[in-house]
């Protein structure tokens, strides 16, 4: 299955193709929405494409002559206006309505990421003990699309393997990966801290402790409350509780700034972690179960879990996405954001709540899966730039693809045994992350 894993790095590879475009102009618009295409394909396609190449050329590497001349002239004469007028090349090359015309690159990046995700879903649906045929499975997947009706060559057993075992698992992994990655991007934006993820503000720790308590004292995973498993429920409540505790404490201790929130999150996490460790070492019989939950797994996936998670996923993704530009403004710091008409504390609270809802949902159906929320946004940022209007949807797509493929590896690498998914994400993800960092390192300069 090594090849599957290689293709698993597809999100990066696909993204890499679009990388040169992720230079200046693509990022300039940073948004993918509707008007983009209208403007992009606007009146004069010739001028449009000409100015695109112009800008691309000026992108990463050496400064184009005209700009350098302009800069130099400005420096020497201390009169930037004059130098610009003296040098007609500067004005004509630079001006053609750079911002008025929206770039098409974000759309390309999103389409590429979508294609990668779909491919990952297909590959992951194929892989496994039952040996489903490629063509039939593809047809069966297409058949599921609305308005598409294809007769598949799959037998009833194969169909039921696909529908009842593979697909729920694949869908759930996609969902969880997407949620974790977007939540990570949101946390990093809200805290203006690249090391933030769901662990930063107590979500993971809260979920871990609550789940441990239920496994040890509450009758274990078989126990249900109103038809919902007790462990997912506890994890959900625990994650939100951890965030709430961190937020309240951070606001009480500081002024609601990012530093005090992060520090409160650290305090809450280590306190809660201590409780969890204490409970675990008191009842060694349950440790195995606790551990298997702590490292995450999709082994128990079925459609009911998908149905359980979906409403929360949709709500949280919508709320976070709506605030994409707010996060861009927040990157300037609270003071400057406030002078631009934003309410930094309120925005932070809303986005934190939504991201934590996403995390809680993900943790509830899959256990704690590290790395995705931390690293996927970074990889995407390297490719798509820091603007959240592209970063957030790209994180959804790439995060979903990454986790689907990680899960494929988790269930096939040592088949019939399963690896904990958290082990796979880190084991495969960490080297991959370093490769991405190296491949895009000119951005650091």
């Amino acid at each position, binding site marked *: 299955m090594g090849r599957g894993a290689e293709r698993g790095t597809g999100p990066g590879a696909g993204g890499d193709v679009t990388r040169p475009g992720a*230079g*200046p*102009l693509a*990022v*300039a618009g*940073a*948004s993918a*929405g509707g*008007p983009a295409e209208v*403007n992009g394909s606007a009146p004069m396609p010739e001028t449009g494409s000409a100015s695109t190449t112009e*800008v691309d050329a*000026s*992108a990463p590497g050496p400064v*184009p002559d*005209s*700009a350098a001349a*302009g*800069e130099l002239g*400005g*420096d020497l004469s*201390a*009169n*930037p*206006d004059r*130098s*610009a007028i003296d040098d007609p090349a*500067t*004005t004509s*090359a*630079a*001006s053609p*309505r*750079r*911002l*008025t015309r*929206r770039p098409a690159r974000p759309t390309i990046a999103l389409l590429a990421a979508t294609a990668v995700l779909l491919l990952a879903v297909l590959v992951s649906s194929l892989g496994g003990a039952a040996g489903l045929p490629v063509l039939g499975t593809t047809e069966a997947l297409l058949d599921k699309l609305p308005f598409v009706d294809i007769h598949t060559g799959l037998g009833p057993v194969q169909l039921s393997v696909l529908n009842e075992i593979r697909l729920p698992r694949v869908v759930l992994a996609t969902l969880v990966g997407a949620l974790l990655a977007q939540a990570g991007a949101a946390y990093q934006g809200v805290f203006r801290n690249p090391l933030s993820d769901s662990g930063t503000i107590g979500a993971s720790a809260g979920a871990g402790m609550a789940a441990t308590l239920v496994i040890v004292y509450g009758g274990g995973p078989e126990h249900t409350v109103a038809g919902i498993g007790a462990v997912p429920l506890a994890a959900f409540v625990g994650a939100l509780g951890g965030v709430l505790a961190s937020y309240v404490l951070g606001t009480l201790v500081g002024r609601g700034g990012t530093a005090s929130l992060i520090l409160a999150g650290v305090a809450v996490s280590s306190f809660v972690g201590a409780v969890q460790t204490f409970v675990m070492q008191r009842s060694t019989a349950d440790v195995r179960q606790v551990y298997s939950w702590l490292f995450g797994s999709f082994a128990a996936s079925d459609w009911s879990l998908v149905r359980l998670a979906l409403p929360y996923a949709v709500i949280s993704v919508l709320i976070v996405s*709506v605030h*994409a*530009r*707010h996060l*861009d*403004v927040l*990157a*300037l*710091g609270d*003071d*400057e954001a*406030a*002078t*631009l*008409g*934003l*309410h930094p504390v309120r925005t932070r609270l809303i986005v934190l709540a939504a991201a934590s809802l996403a995390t809680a949902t993900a943790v509830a159906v899959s256990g704690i899966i590290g790395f995705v929320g931390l690293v996927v946004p970074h990889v995407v*940022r390297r490719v798509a*730039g*820091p*603007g959240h209007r592209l970063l957030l949807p790209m994180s959804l797509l790439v995060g979903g693809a990454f986790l689907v493929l990680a899960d494929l590896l988790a269930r096939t690498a040592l088949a019939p045994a399963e690896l904990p998914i958290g082990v796979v994400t880190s084991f495969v993800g960490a080297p991959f992350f370093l490769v991405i960092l190296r491949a895009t390192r000119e*951005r650091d*300069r």
Partner: protein
Amino acid sequence: MSAVKAAGAWVRLDRKPILRGVDLTVAAGSWHAVLGPNGAGKSTLLKAVVGILPYQGEIQVGGEAVAKLAAKARARLIAYVPQQPQLPADMTVAEYVLLGRTPHLGYLGVESRTDRAVADGALERLDLAGFAGRRLGAMSGGERQRVVLARALAQQAGVLLLDEPTTALDLGHQQQVLDLVDELRSTEGLTVISTLHDLSLAAQYADDLTLLVDGAVVARGTAREVLTEQRIAEHYGARVRVFDDGAGRPVIHLVRDGRLVRESRSG
């Protein structure tokens, strides 16, 4: 007509008074410099005027009480450039300048053609059109200050607050930035309030000055009225000579300790 007016403005941080009943009157279209030794409350005054610090007393911009304005309405009236602006290294110049349009956008923050055109104009106005696709991290100090000014200009607010706009700039770039601000002030009709460390620069560019010491105004007026040798000695604890530059604006020179001068000459 006064664009900005403060009367008896108090600001307390952690119950400690930072501003103690400051009065300020800035005429529309003028350049007003706020001076004072370190810790006098200059930055605090700007932050109170732009509405990011709570204050008691009266502060009005364009005839409206700052504290009563909604954040967006306020941001359409006043633009603010902090002493050390946050410039996310991976953001491009164009993206950054476009953020200046925030107060003119709806909740979803979708920029219209007009918003892009305004940002374009700001870029061109500050001779940054060729830099639109550059990462902020790759800009030099002087360029960065211009980029921040472009963002403030894109905000299309009538009042521009600058907190130490020349810190960390070399001599030529100091002059370039201040000339630029002066030009924007006259062509765009902006009202400018800036804090400035350099008294001679303040005297050169500002129409009126306010000298702030320990959170209270100790002098206000033209440069010639405010910047006297005696006052500077008293409030800055500095030995200076004040000359006239020939155009009626004072020039302030630091003077070396007389005893040491004699020692070094004899030694």
